């Protein structure tokens, strides 16, 4: 599994270009999250892909060839903070509810909805933690689950910023040559 972070133009059709590229390279995407950044013109993607280092290099380099992708970087080998958010609707009756609450405490999940026969839990954290909770909830009966997909950020001073300068001089030169 490889993790890539990409800064892309925040406009229609870009997600299609990115996902279509992965399809063309026959790379299965495990999760892809996209959301705005502090700069409203730019969106940030975290792509988790079923591929090896070579495949990730191809994906990264091919993504950067797309006009609407400012930067793509394979961060798999870097120190990462990774977060996934899950909402889990689990079956809960009078008998097993106390046992369930114990587990919820251990995993630092929160109960965000209570109904007579079920609870909705919210849990965030590393993927392994959510998978772990899911495993122990299974015997109670998991009725529904929604996950946000992973978002990743390199730790500390390892900054991954989008390039925001004016179009490169190379491109400007080409345009003036054409004139």
């Amino acid at each position, binding site marked *: 599994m490889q993790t890539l972070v990409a800064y892309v133009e925040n406009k229609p059709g870009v997600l299609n270009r990115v996902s279509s590229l992965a399809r063309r390279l026959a790379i299965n995407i495990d999760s892809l999250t996209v959301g705005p950044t502090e700069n409203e013109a730019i969106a940030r993607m975290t792509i988790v892909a079923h591929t090896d280092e070579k495949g990730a290099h191809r994906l990264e380099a091919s993504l950067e060839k797309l006009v609407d992708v400012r930067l793509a970087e394979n961060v798999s080998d870097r120190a990462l903070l990774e977060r996934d958010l899950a909402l889990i609707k689990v079956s809960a009756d009078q008998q097993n509810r106390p046992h369930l609450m114990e587990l919820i405490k251990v995993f630092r999940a929160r109960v965000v909805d209570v109904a007579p026969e079920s609870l909705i839990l919210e849990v965030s954290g590393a993927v392994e933690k959510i998978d772990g909770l899911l495993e122990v909830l299974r015997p109670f009966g998991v009725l529904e689950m929604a996950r946000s997909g992973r978002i990743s950020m390199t730790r500390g001073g390892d900054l991954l910023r989008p390039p925001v300068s004016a179009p490169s001089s190379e491109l400007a030169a080409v345009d003036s040559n*054409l004139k």
Partner: protein
Amino acid sequence: MKLTGAEILCESLTRLGVREIFGYPGGAILPVYDALGKSKLHHVLVRHEQGATHMADGYARASGGVGVAMATSGPGATNMVTGIATAMLDSSPVVCITGQVSSKVLGSDAFQEIDITGITMPITKHNVVVSHAEDIARTVREAFVIASSGRPGPVLVDITKDAQQASAEFDWEASAPQLPPKRQRTNHDPAEFDRAVELLNSAKRPLILAGHGIMVSGAMRAFEQFVRAGNYPVAMTLLGIGCFPASDPLNLGMMGMHGEAWVNNAIQEADLLIAVGMRFDDRVTGDLRTYAKSARKIHIEIDRAEINKNVKVDAALVGDAREVLEKLTPHIVTRDHDAWIRHIAKLKGDSAVRDIQSLPDTGHLYAAHVINDIWKETHGEAIVVTDVGQHQMWEAQYYHHNRPRTLITSGGLGTMGFALPAAIGAKFAKPDAEVWVVVGDGGFQMTMSELATIVQEKINIKIAIINNGFLGMVRQWQEFFYDKRYVATPLVAPDFAALANAFGIRGERITKRAEVVPVIRSARESTETVLIDFRVEQEDSVYPMVAAGASLSDMIRRPNSPLVETATEP
């Protein structure tokens, strides 16, 4: 100044230096055609939109500039798909402009509406829908920049009819390209560079693999200096042909599936491959597990996605070929490779004897004779535009190109039907050049309707049909790998000379070797287009051949015994 979107488009194209547009009108692009009529742009009416894209492609490849094709929405746009993919695979800067239904009905399956940007997403470098007149000038300028910069490629601009009709302020200065900023990925890693220099100076058996990127980068002079500095033998890819003179003793010829035997053997024996502007295509490498096992590899390439894609390299210098070569050349100190070069000369061995040119003249006409005679008669100075198949490989083997951009051929996609329209485009790019089409009887029948375009535009090109009555390359594979079961390859063709006459073009038919040179001379003397139907040996094959997926060392060689007798069997 207020202009309509259509007028803004024509004005922008004019300011970008466009002279010709290859296209076909229709409902959704009609406002642009109305504006075209009032502009200085020359519109070339094609007979099929595929032809328009190949013409724009041929124009781009012959000139080094951007070619422009135009079509209406729906079927006009979808007919461009093959031509766009052809340009994509060969990194050719083509800008396609398509009309689109009005933005008010987009997505409603309106008459002749099709999602052409969706369709062409994987076969364009970039594409975009424009639905506001005020965005047209900037978008077209951006399209030209994208198409021609970095690794070039086709860009499609889809303009809705209401954007063509609406009025907007035209301000050229204010509509400068605004492309997203990119991280500059050119590789300046000093360690990588030093490793390349060390490999160059320690190699005993170095060999350059010269590709299309040298031409695209305009690196011919820098490349020659690099070759001279290291005294390196040079092998060419199909699209690299012309970037280094064929007449130079260091130029070995073409590599790969139908490359010269000594070139492929040299690759397998080399201890260093210096790949410049090429991408280790499967037609070049054969089986990757056995490819150049004893060689270290340096890859000079502008597209980072090509590094280590097919062949793992020891030093990757990502960047423009000219810049990288200019940086490398001063560091070359080792240039004594004479023993290696003598060894390669020995590898040629009996190749000359096996060559079809050495077969006794038994009255049979071989394609190689025709192409070799065209080469001699044109002094190797014509622009030759080929189609795809056997004749294409024979052209690469028997027409010796000394200048860049004089062989125009569909390499990556292998598009039959490319030659005739691409040659028309090349002729517009280089009106004073002698342009020859070398095409098979199969491919010619795919786009021969463009003969009418030739007549309408009164242009002068020479068309040599290498007519063997078969889809020859497929037949050759059937002969070698399918026990001569010639399924769907025998091919009926019209009387091409009579067909030419019907279009108002002089047509000739040649069946004997002695007639070849006279007809070439007479065609060259004519100031009009001449079509020559060369009836060549039906079952000749291209040698040597590396079977698909086989090792480069395992070549099927031309049989020593004259194949004339077997070749005439039905």
